[in-house]
């Protein structure tokens, strides 16, 4: 088992370096990235017959960067590929980055496939809407697909302004039939998704964000007009003999979204707030308005108990009126502890609980990471679901407590 895990990145790496060497000679750019192996193990037998107990997968993410014109211009190419032992949807490739950046006198222009992050909170990213979520990568929704864009940015005394033109929509990824964890009904991304407006996936979206950074505050106000990254509905396409849907496809709609993200620094406290108000502009839910927010604080004890370790407390409350999307974050409190060891191996542990105030359902997690030597990292993750009785939102995940280990080699 152990050699298997180690061999896999080694083989991937040797294949990769063979091609890397050529690129280096040709354009003398800067190549980096990682190859990794992951094992995800579930503690219980699956609730769905197609699922398995252990999933092995391999991942590679090479990143090429070249700048010229006194670093005023650059190109970046970042590719991604994961091969999963069982889940055909999780075996996927993506162009994370394929962009050209030009720094002009007062403006910075980026064109191509790229990634943008908006937000301040730790346990949910509400206003972050430019990139589609790569949902099969991890359940935390932090992995994103590359988004085609033209972005113009300027940073002035009055604040920063980012203007986006986003041609081309990326559909959200979802676990396949053998994927785990997944909802009882398969969201089939193999079939064409439903778009309830005429331009479909070729729709051109627009976005704007103004942000300001002061001594003790920082905030951003964003506007987005385009295809909602989260499906507004699902349509059944296959049924079991009892007539219950077994497979659905996502429905995508146009929305306008107004977002706010801000934080204030008061002593050792960092107060954070994100909020998004949206209105659907197409399809069955046309005219539907919704509001969601997440807010809380992070407090850090530096050098706790005379050690060099930092201990951070994260408390965030989540609310959604659920008028457009169903979410588990409707009325929930997330609390987490962050241990930063400040050692040479950069050891960190984040442990937390998300509690639903209405149903008392609980999701708990531990994420730990550290460096091994100079080029390897080890990440471990544990996720558990509690209060998963039928009729409760986490019912589908009642057998899906799991542990996951990632070993990565960086080059």
């Amino acid at each position, binding site marked *: 088992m152990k050699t298997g895990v180690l061999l896999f990145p080694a083989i991937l790496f040797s294949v990769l370096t063979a091609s890397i060497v050529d690129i280096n000679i040709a354009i003398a750019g800067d190549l*980096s990235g990682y190859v990794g192996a992951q094992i995800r193990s579930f503690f219980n037998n699956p609730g769905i017959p197609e699922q398995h107990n252990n999933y092995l997968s391999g991942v590679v993410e090479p990143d090429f960067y070249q700048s010229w014109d006194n670093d005023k211009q650059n190109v970046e190419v970042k590719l991604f590929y994961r091969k999963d032992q069982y889940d055909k949807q999780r075996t996927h490739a993506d162009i994370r980055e394929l962009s050209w950046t030009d720094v002009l006198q007062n403006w910075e222009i980026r064109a191509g496939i790229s990634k943008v992050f908006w937000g301040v909170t730790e346990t949910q990213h509400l206003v972050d809407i430019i990139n589609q979520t790569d949902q099969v990568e991890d359940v935390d929704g932090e992995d994103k697909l590359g988004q085609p864009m033209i972005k113009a940015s300027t940073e002035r005394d009055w604040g920063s302004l980012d203007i986006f033109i986003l041609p081309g929509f990326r559909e959200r990824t979802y676990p396949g039939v053998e994927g785990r964890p997944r909802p009882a009904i398969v969201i089939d991304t193999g079939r064409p998704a439903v778009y309830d407006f005429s331009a479909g996936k070729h729709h051109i979206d627009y976005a704007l964000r103004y942000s300001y950074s002061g001594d003790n505050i920082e905030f951003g106000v964003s506007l987005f007009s385009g295809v909602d990254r989260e499906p507004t509905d699902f349509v059944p396409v296959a049924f079991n003999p009892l007539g219950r849907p077994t497979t659905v496809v996502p429905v995508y709609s146009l929305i306008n979204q107004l977002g706010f993200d801000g934080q204030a620094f008061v002593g050792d406290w960092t107060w954070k707030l994100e909020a998004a108000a949206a209105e659907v502009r197409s399809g069955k839910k046309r005219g539907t308005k919704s509001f969601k927010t997440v807010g809380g604080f992070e407090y850090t004890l530096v050098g706790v108990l005379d050690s060099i370790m930092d201990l951070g407390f994260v408390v965030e409350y989540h609310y959604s009126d659920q008028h457009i999307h169903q979410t588990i974050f409707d009325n929930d409190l997330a609390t987490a502890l962050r241990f930063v060891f400040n050692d040479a191996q950069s050891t960190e542990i984040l442990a937390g609980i998300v509690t639903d105030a209405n149903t008392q359902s609980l999701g708990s997690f531990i994420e730990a990471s550290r*460096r091994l030597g100079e*080029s390897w990292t080890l990440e471990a993750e544990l996720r558990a679901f509690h209060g998963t009785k039928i009729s409760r939102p986490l019912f589908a995940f009642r057998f899906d407590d799991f542990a996951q280990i990632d070993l990565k080699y960086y080059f």
Partner: protein
Amino acid sequence: MRLISTGILLMITGYGLLLPCAQAQTAAEKGLAIAVEADKRDNGFVDSKADLIMELRNKQGDVSTRYIRIKTLEVANDGDKSLSIFDKPADVKGTAFLTYSHALKPDEQWLYLPALRRVKRINSKNKSGPFMGSEFAYEDLSSQEVKKYTYKYLRDEKIKTREFPQGVDCFVVERYPTYAHSGYTREVAWINKDRYIAEKIDFYDRKNTLLKTLTNINEKQYLNRYWRPDQMLMENHQSGKSTLLTWKNYHFKNGFTRRDFSRNSLKRAR
């Protein structure tokens, strides 16, 4: 500069203001005067860039190495702006820190995480924590502004260093962080009388016990004016760990502007 240390303090009652006598210096005034002179001599470098190798050594002698590039922009009447970009270890490649140091108010600091393309503002009120697992605290690496301390001149002393095995004349100055969240009660600095840079600094922790010693090794003069050490060794007396910084490829007056130290610049720092 007057080096007379017999001074008289006039206390203006009710306001607690100190009015130094025109003709004489107290130990506090002399300490301040040395700091002001050191600051003055370092003024006008405009900007600089350098490569930094950071070697973390634990008690057992295991070494872990980081490669960092640092760009600095001098800001008149305030702290400097600096951008630190990590090249190694490979897993943090592209990670960058942007710091706007300030003399009196807390520094502003942003961390860029390339994997998430996220710029994260750091609550930098407490800068006593270690920088990237090293023996250097954030506050040790922040720009040294006169107003960040109050001072007390202690004595003159000749100390032996690697560069001056026969000894070099120093002012010994004690300084006290004005910053409420500092990890130190006091620092004792041996300031080279000729060059006005520290040869050695002892750091005393919140319990006033000796925590760390910084030794600057082989100072070089750039542009016929600015002294910079080739190496800085920080030894932690309590943990037995040490960090050696080796500076390479110093370049001054690169024509950097404020735009090279913007939050957007952080995202494209490579």
